[in-house]
C-alpha cells in the first residue's frame, strides 16, 4: 500500500541527507510504529507518505500512485490523513462538528453526505456526545481525537500520526492510542511516529531509525530482543521489557512475548 524505493532526501543547505536509501513496504491494514532519536529522520519519512516532502532520489508510491507526479498529489492526500503534535494547530473552527465537517466541505461533498460522515467520524473516535461542544473547552486528548475525526471524515485509507501524543497527559495518550487501535481493527492502515516506546508494544511492526537509515524492522517481540541496537540508536526499551530482562538475569525464564504488565505477571506468577 505504501512503498519506499531507495528513497534519499536532503533538506536544502543540510550537510547530510535526512533519509538515505530507505527501502520500506507497508501493507494494507498494517499497524507500523516508527521510532528513532531526535533527528533520525522519522518525521521526514512520515511527511513523504502524503507528498508533503518529495524524495531527492528514489520513489514513494502510495496506493499505486507515485508522489513525485504532481497530478497524483490530491488523490494521494485523499487517501492519506495526517495528524501532528499540537492539537491546537489542527483545529480550525470553534464548534466540534463544524471542525470535523471542514475537510469534506472543502472537497465539495454533498450536505447530506457530510452529515453522515461527521456522525460516523465522531462515533469512531468516541466523541458523539461532544458534537455541539466548543472546541476550546476540550482536553488535549479530546482535541486530538477531534483532529483525527476531521481526518476520518475525508475517508482516508491510511492514517499517519507524527508524534500525535507528545503533548498529551497520560489519560489523553491512552485515549488516543485506544482510538488508533480501534481504527486499525476496522481496517485502517496506520503509520505512527512516536517517542514513547511503551506505545509500540501493541503494533504489528516497529521500524527503528538512526541517522536517516532503518536499523531494525520487525515485530515488537523481535525488536525488543535487541536492547544493544536500541541503545546505540539513543533509544531504550519500555520499562516492562527492561524489568523482564533483569528478572531473566536473576533466573526467571520469561519468554520474548513478555512486553506488557499483564503478560509479565502471567508468566512470572506461576514461577513463584
Amino acid at each position, binding site marked *: 500500500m505504501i512503498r519506499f524505493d531507495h528513497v534519499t532526501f536532503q533538506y536544502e543547505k543540510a550537510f547530510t541527507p535526512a533519509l538515505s536509501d530507505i527501502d520500506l513496504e507497508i501493507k494494507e491494514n498494517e499497524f507500523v510504529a516508527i521510532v528513532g532519536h*531526535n*533527528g*533520525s529522520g522519522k518525521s521526514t519519512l512520515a511527511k513523504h507518505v502524503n507528498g508533503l516532502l518529495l524524495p531527492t532520489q528514489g520513489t514513494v508510491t502510495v496506493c499505486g500512485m507515485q508522489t513525485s507526479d504532481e497530478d497524483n498529489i490530491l488523490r494521494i492526500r485523499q487517501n492519506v490523513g495526517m495528524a501532528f503534535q499540537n492539537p491546537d494547530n489542527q483545529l480550525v473552527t470553534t464548534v466540534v462538528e463544524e471542525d470535523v465537517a471542514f475537510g469534506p466541505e472543502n472537497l465539495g461533498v454533498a450536505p447530506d453526505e457530510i452529515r453522515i460522515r461527521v456522525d460516523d467520524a465522531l462515533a469512531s473516535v468516541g466523541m458523539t456526545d461532544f458534537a455541539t461542544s466548543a472546541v476550546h473547552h476540550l*482536553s488535549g486528548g479530546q482535541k486530538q481525537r477531534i483532529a483525527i475525526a476531521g481526518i476520518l471524515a475525508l475517508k482516508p485509507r491510511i492514517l499517519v500520526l507524527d508524534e500525535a501524543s507528545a503533548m498529551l497527559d*497520560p489519560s489523553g495518550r491512552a485515549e488516543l492510542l485506544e482510538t488508533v487501535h480501534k481504527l486499525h481493527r476496522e481496517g485502517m492502515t496506520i503509520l505512527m511516529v512516536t517517542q514513547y516506546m511503551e506505545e509500540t508494544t501493541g503494533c504489528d511492526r516497529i521500524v527503528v531509525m538512526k541517522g536517516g537509515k532503518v536499523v531494525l524492522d520487525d515485530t515488537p517481540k523481535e525488536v525488543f530482543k535487541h536492547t544493544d541496537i536500541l541503545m546505540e540508536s*539513543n*533509544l531504550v526499551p*519500555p*520499562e516492562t521489557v527492561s524489568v523482564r530482562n533483569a528478572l531473566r538475569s536473576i533466573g526467571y525464564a520469561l519468554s520474548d512475548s513478555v512486553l506488557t504488565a499483564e503478560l509479565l505477571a502471567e508468566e512470572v506468577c506461576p514461577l513463584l
Partner: protein
Amino acid sequence: MSIVINHLTFAYTQGGKPLAPTLKGLTFTIEEGSFLGIIGHTGSGKSTFVKHLNGLLSCEKGTVIVDGHDLSQKSERRTVRSLVGMVFQYPEYQLFAETVYEDVAFGPRNMKLDEAEIKTRVTNAMTMVGLDPERFSTRSPFELSGGERRRAAIAGVLAMQPKYLVLDEPMAGLDPLGRKEILSLLEKLRSESGCTIIMISHSMDDIANHATKVLVLEQGSVFLYDTPQIVFSNAEELQRIGLSVPSITKICIEMNRRGVAIPTSICTEDAFLHWFREGKAHA
C-alpha cells in the same frame, strides 16, 4: 530553609472579571534539597502553580514564602528571583544569542557580575549540562541538536546558580536518551550543589525513579502530597483523575490480581528486583 505555601488561591481574569479559581487554597511545604515531582492532568493547575514560586504570578489570597522572603511583598521579588530558577516548556525556543556562550551568559550579565565571575559561571554551567565549553562556546545555538539546545537553555538558568530549580516538562519532545541525560543532570545538580528540584512531568516512570516527594494536583487543589511509594499505591484514585501509575506498579497490581501479595507501593525497578531477591519469601 524551604518554600512555604499557605492557602494559595489564584484566579485568572477575563475582561477585568475573575474567572473560576485555578488554584484553591494550596497549603504545603517544599523542603530544601528535595526532588519534588508535580503531576496532574491537563488543566489541573500545575503550570499556574509553579509560576507563583518566583512571583511571575501573584496570589490574591494566601502566601508563598521562599527562604523567609514573602512574595506578596514586591520588594522581595528580586531576591526571590535570584533564588528560584525557572525552565519553561520547550525552553530552547527562547535561545536568541549568536553563540552558546553569550546565551548562557545573559542571566549572570543581568545580575551585574564582573566578567571573570561570568566566565566561571558560564563554563561551570556548560560543563554541568554536558556541553564542553571548548567545543560549544563559539557555536550558534541554532546549529545544535534538539537535546543539546535544551541543555544549553537549562545552562542559562543554572548560570544564575539558583537554590531552587523549577522545570515545566523539561523532557517533552526529547528522545529516550535525551530524556535520560536531563534526568541525570538534575540528579547531579541535587547531589553536588544541593539544589532543590521542582519538576512537572507526565511520565509516571520518571517521577517514580527520581522524585522524593510527589504533589498531585486536581482541579486546583492538593489531591495527594506524599512519597512516590504512598502516592502511587492509590492507583484507582489516580486513574479516576486522568493519571496513571508507573510501569512497575502496574506489574505489581497485575501480580496481586493473580494472587501474589507483592506490595503495590513498589514503583521502581530496584525495589521490584529487591522484592524478588529478599521479600517474596515473606509474602
